[in-house]
């Protein structure tokens, strides 16, 4: 094995039916940001969880600063100076931000809390990561991006020597991402070892200086000088094949309007919002976190009440007061917050897949059609390339990206007229991303109207026919594909009076 401040030595870990890690060895230098990449289910999160003591490896060992360490529980890892930000958020919704940040090591004197000290410290910590919220606010009331920032603030309170980030940017927008990169940059300068997991190659190549690639639980490549390798080489090593133009946009025949949203005002939508989606059209909605994109989709889907406005499907005005109404009208929404709103973790892949469409595929509308459900689950698993040992596996046991695919599969089974996709490729690897784009095209090709909300600029630019930009609860501009570019979209999306400090 090579050197390195942190070394993994022949780490193996199996779950029933899956060999998640197979004798993985590599080293991470201190004062470096080391990227860890690989397809969904390659074993990245599992490796991080072993590093943090959340899982126990079957064999192999971890070496920190030349010493073999063994973590029986997260407490041990924290004490040895390891701080991990997990892919899924782990916060206590009913507790305050401050309490969450200091969870596990609350400031105290003889077991008695020092609340004022804690609030002061938390406020400093929040300022550090660049968010302005009252540390007394309950975490459950925060939007996803802010919760992610709380999670990051929490990890930074540990006086750690090793930091590991598991897809920290997947729910952040441009502004928070640049803030996070500054923080990671500082960690690197102060000599910490940083492991960084991401599916976004742009990030990897701008932030990191070393890289390791995992494939199917095996170590395939480590390069301590990132400039010695290239993006296409890395992608090739990850997925085992060439991926050229990942977006592969083709123009289509565009038909009559399928979805018309007229002057909708709702929670989080401050100015009446209108939009039209035609059959076969892919409409993107771009904006920063909190711009009202998710709220707009939820209002269309009947999940948030709207105060005024109307929704028309195929030229007919529809009453949409609940999600049931929306599904009946032919609208599907694939939500952003997978863990809270998407999956049923302790149910099987099959169950999760069929949850919605079974309503229309039951005998006499009552009895479940086992055969159809089996077939449908297999079909979606295959078409989305979900990495799961069987369709009986609990969805909670799948890797993050594969959970996302299962949710997507559920809504594809609905055969909707309009599909609303909220961050559809969040946490999805580059190979599967291409497949999802191809699917979006396929859907559009078949006459479905598609709405894609995304924080990833290249994705919006690469896939959509038309782009709406939202800012502070209002649709500020509609731009055709041919006129759109990164600079323009970002400028429109940034809140007024905040145009200087932000970067892509």
């Amino acid at each position: 094995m090579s050197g390195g401040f942190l070394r993994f030595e022949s780490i193996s870990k199996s779950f029933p039916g899956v060999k998640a890690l197979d004798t993985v060895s590599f080293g991470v230098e201190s004062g470096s940001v080391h990227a860890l990449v690989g397809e969904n289910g390659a074993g990245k999160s599992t490796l991080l969880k072993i590093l943090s003591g959340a899982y126990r490896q079957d064999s192999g060992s971890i070496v920190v600063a030349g010493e073999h360490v063994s973590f029986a529980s997260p407490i041990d890892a924290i004490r040895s100076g390891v701080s991990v930000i997990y892919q899924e958020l782990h916060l206590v919704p009913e507790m305050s931000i401050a309490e969450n940040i200091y969870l596990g090591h609350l400031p105290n004197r003889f077991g008695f809390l020092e609340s004022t000290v804690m609030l002061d410290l938390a406020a400093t910590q929040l300022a550090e990561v660049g968010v302005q919220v009252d540390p007394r606010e309950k975490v459950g009331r925060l939007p996803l991006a802010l919760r992610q920032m709380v999670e990051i603030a929490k990890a930074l309170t540990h006086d750690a020597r090793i930091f590991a980030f598991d897809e920290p940017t997947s729910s952040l927008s441009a502004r928070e991402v640049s803030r996070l990169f500054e923080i990671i940059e500082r960690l690197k300068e102060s000599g910490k070892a940083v492991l960084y997991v991401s599916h976004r190659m742009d990030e990897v190549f701008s932030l990191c200086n070393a890289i390791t690639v995992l494939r199917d639980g095996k170590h395939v490549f480590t390069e301590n000088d990132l400039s010695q390798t290239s993006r296409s080489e890395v992608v090739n090593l990850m997925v085992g094949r060439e991926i050229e133009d990942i977006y592969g946009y083709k123009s289509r025949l565009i038909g009559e309007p399928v979805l018309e949203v007229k002057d909708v005002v709702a929670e989080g939508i401050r100015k009446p919002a209108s939009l039209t989606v035609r059959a076969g059209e892919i409409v993107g909605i771009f904006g920063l976190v909190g711009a009202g994109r998710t709220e707009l989709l939820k209002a269309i889907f009947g999940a948030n009440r709207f105060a005024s406005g109307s929704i028309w499907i195929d030229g007919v005005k529809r009453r949409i007061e609940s999600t049931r109404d929306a599904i009946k009208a032919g609208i599907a929404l694939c939500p952003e917050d997978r863990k809270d709103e998407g999956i049923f973790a302790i149910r099987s892949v099959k169950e999760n897949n069929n949850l919605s469409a079974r309503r229309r595929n039951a005998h006499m509308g009552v009895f479940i059609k086992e055969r159809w459900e089996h077939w449908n689950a297999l079909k979606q698993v295959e078409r989305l390339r979900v990495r799961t040992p069987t369709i009986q596996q609990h969805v909670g046991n799948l890797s993050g990206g594969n959970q996302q695919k299962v949710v997507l599969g559920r809504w594809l089974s609905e055969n909707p007229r309009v599909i609303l996709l909220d961050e559809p490729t969040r946490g999805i690897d580059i190979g599967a991303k291409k497949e999802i784009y191809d699917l979006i095209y396929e859907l559009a090709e078949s006459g479905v109207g598609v709405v894609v909300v995304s924080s990833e600029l290249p994705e919006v630019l690469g896939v959509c026919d038309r782009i709406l930009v939202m800012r502070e609860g209002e649709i500020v501009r509609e731009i055709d594909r041919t006129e759109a570019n990164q600079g323009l979209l970002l400028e429109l999306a940034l809140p007024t009076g905040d145009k200087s400090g932000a970067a892509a």
Partner: protein
Amino acid sequence: MRPRQLWETTGILVVFVVFVLILAATVENFATPINIRTILVSVSVVGMVACTMLFCLAGGDFDLSVGSTVALGGVIAALVVNKTGSLAYAVLIPVCVGAVVGMVNGFFIAKVGINALITTLATMQIVRGSAQLASGGSSIGVSNESFAALGQTFWLGLPTPVWLMIGFFIIFGVLLNKTLFGRNTLAVGGNPEAARLAGIAVARTKIAVFTLQGMVAAFAGVVLASRVTSGQPTAGLGLELQVISACVLGGVSLTGGVGTITGVIVGVLIMGVLENAMGLLNIQAFWKLVISGSVLLLAVTLDRLKHKASLRRKAERV
């Protein structure tokens, strides 16, 4: 948001005050000093046990074995005091036995991973049986003077059990709000995985909570035995449900992570006042059951509605 939060924390208090005012105006002999004292004494056992039940619920579990532990505590206290004549032993030994019961509950729930319903349903029967065995099936009279001190003396015009209950409210209120242990319990109930990953010893916290619960229940049993001058193996039948309803009435969430001591105090008082008023109004025992059951249902409904409201708020914000 702030007014809504205010309603969540003080809403039940308002309901309580209105309830008491109505009863004071309509029920004869309700608002008299003697009757108020009667109410306080009658809730003292439930009140003490509710303190630790709050911790159990906040930690995401509950404990059905408390009623049985109250009985066992009383029986053992009676046996011990009859044998040794010592008040100290008559308190200490039952409390230790209660601690063992609690530890067993905690062990099976936190270490073996059996859920709280099954575990405490089993220990509820085991402990009740043990109380019957220890007492030979009938109540054990106590005629020791010093033992009566716990249940029958007065201080500043209030009976000792009431002072003990007040003391417990204060101690456990401080424990919940001001200490690491309290915060950790809420974290464990609010999101066990997050708590574990943050380095909180989840199993140890749970075992500690159940051990406290057993100790307090046994102690409450001793106080009860002192008050009625006998250790009865049938004491505390159905107590677990009264205690849980009182907690839920006071806004403690059955799914864990949420609970305040003030809520529990109000919940306990509502239960006591209701029981007392039904007595004063000479309501038939059968009707009392129907009414108590309905109150429990109401309590759980309140909990649900609040939960839904908070989910909705969350949905609004995200």
